[in-house]
């Protein structure tokens, strides 16, 4: 029973890792950049949501605002900064290093701006549903209505994304652009726009993840940094190129960490994530579902 409880407890946080992994993978596929600024973008979007929450006292409006803010910020970052950086970094020595550092700079700017606007103190974010554990057969489990809401929302968001990717021509263009940008351009598709869209989608996913996770972590300018580390780990576990892999990686990580925390204690959480990441990178570099030979990007 205890093991089952621990597993259940990991599902909803795993869903959030999946969402972050999804955002990172989307950006990676479109631009070959790991967006380390995603933590800042997500926090920024969540703050926008919190402002709406405070002004209108409506969770759903705030959620919508956070997602829209995420989309806009994502698109903005791609159009104004990333495009320029990617174009400039051409030599072998800089092409891999420059985007990473640029994203860190961006993260710093985001965090500073958030501090200026909203202050540095930890703020609570409300939930839409009760956080009391559900009762099943008279015993309470560590899974609340709100956890269920998080899980269902992530599943819904992923289903919509899957639908877009698999069934629409936009999705086709996005998949094609991810793997063969030149062929896609030669097919008459504006790849630069597809890129912007990828960043925008990722930004929206980040905003959604932020609002879903903020009630459990509080919100502060840097409160999503660790979420990013976990999201990245999840993405790598799944293989940075595979959206489904990232989603599964997130769930696996969430459940795995929950088990470790439950049985060994909270101090081992980060260490476990780190060891897991290194082991996956070394033993199966392409991730669980990733394509071969992708690791040395």
């Amino acid at each position, binding site marked *: 029973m205890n093991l089952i409880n621990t597993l259940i407890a990991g599902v909803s946080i795993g869903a959030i890792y999946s969402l972050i992994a999804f955002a990172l993978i989307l950006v990676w596929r479109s631009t070959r950049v790991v967006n380390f600024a995603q933590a800042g973008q997500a926090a920024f979007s969540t703050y926008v949501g919190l402002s709406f929450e405070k002004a209108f006292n409506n969770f759903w409006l705030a959620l919508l605002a956070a997602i829209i803010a995420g989309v806009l910020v994502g698109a903005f970052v791609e159009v104004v900064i990333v495009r320029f950086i990617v174009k400039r970094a*051409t030599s072998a020595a800089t092409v891999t290093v420059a985007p990473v550092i640029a994203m*860190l700079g961006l993260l710093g700017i985001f965090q500073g701006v958030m501090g200026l606007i909203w202050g540095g103190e930890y703020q609570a974010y409300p939930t839409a549903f009760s956080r009391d554990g559900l009762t099943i057969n008279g015993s309470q489990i560590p899974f609340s209505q709100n956890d269920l809401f998080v899980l269902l929302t992530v599943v819904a968001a992923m289903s919509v994304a899957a639908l877009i990717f698999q069934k629409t021509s936009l999705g086709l263009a996005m998949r094609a652009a991810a793997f063969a940008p030149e062929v896609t351009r030669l097919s008459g598709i504006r790849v630069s726009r597809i890129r912007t869209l990828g960043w925008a989608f990722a930004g929206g996913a980040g905003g959604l993840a932020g609002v879903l996770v903020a009630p459990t972590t509080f919100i502060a300018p840097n409160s999503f940094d660790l979420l990013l580390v976990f999201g990245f780990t999840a993405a790598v576990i799944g293989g940075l190129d595979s959206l489904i892999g990232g989603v599964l990686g997130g769930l696996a990580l969430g459940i795995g960490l929950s088990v470790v925390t439950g049985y060994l204690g909270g101090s081992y959480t980060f260490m476990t994530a780190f060891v897991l990441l290194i082991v996956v990178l070394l033993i199966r570099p392409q991730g669980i579902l990733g394509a071969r030979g992708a690791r040395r990007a």
Partner: protein
Amino acid sequence: MLVVRSSHKPSATKRTILALIVGIILFVGSNFIDEYRIFQGAQVAAYLVGIVSIVLLTGYSGQITLGQGAFMAVGSYSAALAVQEFGLPIWITFFIAVLAAALFGAIIGISAGRLSGPYLAGATLAFAVGIPALANAIPILGGEQGLSFDIGYAPGKYADTVSPYKWLFWICALCAIIAVVIAVNITSSGLGRQWRAVRAHETAAALCGINPARSKVMAFTVSSGFAGLAGVSFSATVGLVSPSGFTLALSFLLLTGAILGGISHISGALGGAIIVVIIPTVFESWTEEASLGVATYLPGIIVSALLLLSIALAPEGPSEALHKLRRKH
């Protein structure tokens, strides 16, 4: 690309003399500066060593690291443990820090040598988060409060006349000077040339008989040793070794300093260290009467914006860009 341009840099002897002169200037100069500046000087020296470690790894060997703070932590904890558990004298612990961090770097380097770009960045990022958190899990490391690491006072009868800040500054500056001299010697040696060759073109370097994997692991090891020294200097300035001293923010700050100073040359490290220590201070004094928020966040924004700009305008670092400019004209 493999033909690395012949260096017209001064020889090892000349460099040593130069370092001695710098040392004398700092030494004498430290008597005419107020204590807070001296304290900041010690911080600059500690950051300088940390930035040198990044320049070696990222600038010369081309391996990116977001987790240099973790190696610093390894060095610092080793030093503090050596004092606490074995009662070793402080000066020996500096060597222990270097060795422990280098050993650790070698182990990590063997795994990291297979990674590049964003994967390496992500792995070192997780490392930066994981290592300090581990300190909370191992009781002997003293949890969040950490371990004491006190370099104490100047020896003998000078204990009363030499202020602890001056003593601190001297030790940190000495470490920094030694570190820079050794780093410059490494980079102008065959080892440094190997690293740059691998960075420029791995396959081509391999065809020239360089083992890229070994070269990368070596760079990781050496860089980690420097990081260990940086960690122990840094811990000396605050008197303790604790997880909160080695945050992600520290790792990012060092990388920022390395980039802003110019990642491709050791000489940039000093500028980088000064920037990351001084900019926040300058802003604090400017915004004295303004709200606390501006003083807290504006320096971060400015430094990050500079980072972004320098990457956008000169992806290879300002010094490399200048060099290119010179070649053009």
